[in-house]
């Protein structure tokens, strides 16, 4: 089976092609600038270097947030259109779960994305990527008290005033976890922002 993996939701861009549990192409970098220009040529390179075509892909795995709103939409638009056009199965993955795929000696992994004003996007996962605390937009202090009694490592690409590890992702681990997922209709494959827009929040307050 052939898989395309796309992540533009976090600060670590990932484009991978996996064939039968083996990574055939892997692009990762920590540069989230100018994504909209850079990403299609990287995908093109992924296919060229593996001698594959988009229509050869059996499943697209794509992160659908939380994270940078624009970043999420860039990868997800590609996945939506590709899955719709070529009738490929598409499976959304939480970007926090992808971050939690780190190799760690701790029992639990807590991925954090800085959401400003003391808020984070955060979740809690075990080593097998089972979700212990659902992904949420939450005050950092509140989240920390939620997990304080657990044997936990914090994973983040952002800086905090406590120790976090800035990990590489284990794409195979994530794919294997979701290999039997049913997939979603591309029309309903949408971002999971975990946060309303400011305009919507203000309207709700009224």
């Amino acid at each position, binding site marked *: 089976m052939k898989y395309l993996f796309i992540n533009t939701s976090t600060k670590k861009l990932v484009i991978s092609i996996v064939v039968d549990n083996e990574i055939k192409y892997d692009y990762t970098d920590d540069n989230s600038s100018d994504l909209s220009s850079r990403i*299609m040529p990287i995908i*093109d390179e992924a296919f060229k270097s593996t001698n594959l075509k988009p*229509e050869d892909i059996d499943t697209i795995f794509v992160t659908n947030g939380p994270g940078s*709103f624009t970043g999420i939409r860039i990868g*997800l*638009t590609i996945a939506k*259109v590709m899955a719709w*056009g070529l009738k490929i199965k598409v499976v959304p993955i939480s970007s926090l779960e992808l971050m939690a795929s780190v190799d760690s000696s701790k029992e639990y992994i807590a991925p954090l994305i800085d959401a400003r004003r003391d808020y984070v996007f955060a979740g809690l996962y075990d080593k097998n990527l089972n979700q212990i605390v659902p992904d949420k937009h939450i005050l950092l202090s509140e989240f920390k008290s939620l997990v304080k009694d657990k044997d936990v490592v914090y994973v983040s690409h952002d800086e905090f005033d406590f120790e976090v590890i800035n990990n590489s992702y284990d794409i195979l681990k994530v794919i294997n976890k979701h290999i039997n997922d049913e997939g979603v209709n591309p029309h309903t494959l949408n*971002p999971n922002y975990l946060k309303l*827009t400011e305009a919507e929040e203000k309207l709700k307050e009224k």
Partner: protein
Amino acid sequence: MDTYILAIESSCDETSLSIIKNGSEEISTVVLSQMDTHANYGGVVPEIASRMHIENITIVIEECLNKANMTMDDIDAIAITYGPGLIGSLLIGVMAAKTLAYIYNKPLVPVHHIAGHIYANNLVRPMEFPLMALVVSGGHTELVYMKEHYSFEVVGTTLDDAIGEAYDKVARVIGVKYPGGPNVDKLAHIGKDTYDLPLPLNDDTFNFSFSGIKSAVINLAHNEEQRGNTINKEDLACSFQNRVVDILTKKTMHALTEYGVKNLIVAGGVSANKGLREKLTYLCEKEGINLTIPEIKYCTDNAAMIGAAGYFAYKLGRRADLTLNAKATDRLN
């Protein structure tokens, strides 16, 4: 042989797809407007617009192809509005267009949003050159001289606000609901020209300025309020509209004489304005000018116009590659 362009437009709050044959014949168009949503906020909220574009993009593509009873195999090229506009909105269309071009191996043709508005006229009847285009929208007020296809010489532009912005501001001052422009136009037709407002930038250039008259309306409303008088909305709308239509038409007719041009086309959202249409129709008839104004459905943002412009850009060999980016601002080209 016939050429079919699949066009995508997502520069503001409309997700639109269209299939256009030979740059002049509309095969199918789908416009999914977000206007009702943004009306809750008194104007377009960029982040909400982006969110709605991504939710709708594949649905609109599919509907457009189904409506035309065509598949991607029938399409010769993909035309995309790359700018100017709201960057987050543009990005959804641009990423979708690049992905379609990539997976179906089709040429990708970048189209400037204003070129699209101008070429909406080619859907009415074939454009005849040389021509003068009066571009009036929420972001633009320009006189563009074209001696042939895709040759754009901007001979006049606004020095401050675009005409559509001035309309929206005046709408807010006199308490008219979003979208302000069309509603002020409606009131203007009921009211009388009773308020003393200045004729904006009444000089010999082809440039425009609307900040002065905008301030005049604000001050007038404020002063009347201070004196405890209520303003007559209809009359103020009528006075404002008469003044801006006067200067728009005066400078347009002047430009036509100066450049010796007999063809005038009107483009952009404000070309739906009834006051402007009536005055231009009257003046052009009097002066023997060949006037084209698109139907209302082609005046507001739509992908049909991008397909028309995209056809001529395609024929001229204009192409974008997979690095194409959305641009919030860009010179008409």
